[in-house]
């Protein structure tokens, strides 16, 4: 059968994606978000180095709800990208290749991510 005759069915609301697929898609999404955060991080690095007054100003970022949301989005992106990335590195060296192992390692990532985010939210916001 020619490649062009393959049935294409991409209704994202009807495809049931396994958990490994979901965290993998978010690895990519968070990767793009982190790319956009690169200049932001450099800007704040620059401010924090320049003077004590500007350093204090960076610390005040935690006050407004909007910047809190952005910071949380950044932290979550970093944590998710890092954890799923470590899982990919382990798969590269032939760990968790078997289907059941791949599934449980994906769930492990979700659980560890949840715990880390709970600790961070408690530490930063509560």
């Amino acid at each position, binding site marked *: 059968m020619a490649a062009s005759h393959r049935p294409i069915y991409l209704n994202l609301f009807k495809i049931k994606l396994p958990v490994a697929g979901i965290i993998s898609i978010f690895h990519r999404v968070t990767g793009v978000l982190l790319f956009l955060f690169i200049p932001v991080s450099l800007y704040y690095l*620059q401010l924090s*180095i320049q003077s004590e007054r500007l*350093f204090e100003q960076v610390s005040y970022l935690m006050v407004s709800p909007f910047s809190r949301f952005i910071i949380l989005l950044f932290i979550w992106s970093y944590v998710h990208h*890092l954890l799923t990335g470590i899982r990919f*590195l382990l798969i590269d060296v032939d760990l968790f290749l078997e289907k059941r192992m791949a599934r449980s390692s994906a769930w492990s990532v979700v659980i560890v991510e949840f715990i880390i985010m709970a600790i961070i939210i408690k530490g930063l916001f509560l």
Partner: protein
Amino acid sequence: MTMVALEGLRPWLLQRLTALYMVVYTLYVIVYWSVFNTLSYSSWHGWLVNEINLVLLGLFYLSLLLHAWVGIRDVLLDYIKPLLLRLILLFLVAGFLMGTAIWMMKILLSVNL
């Protein structure tokens, strides 16, 4: 393996090596700042004045920029099919990352040692 087959291996390896460095560096930063020290302007400045930390931070950003290049390149190759648009976007991303690298060098060199 032919040269063509090796073409794809280099960015793949670069992506993995930079990832590995960033994982280790992240753990170092988390352990240093959450376990051993509290963040203030003087402790932060003192940390950066140490040349080792400055070099490690520079290497982190270098890894980050290279890693971002491979990643964003993969995303663009996956989703942007028209050749001209793809080339323009790749060019813009490369320019953006190189500009960021220069900015990063300027910032790190501005730390008063």
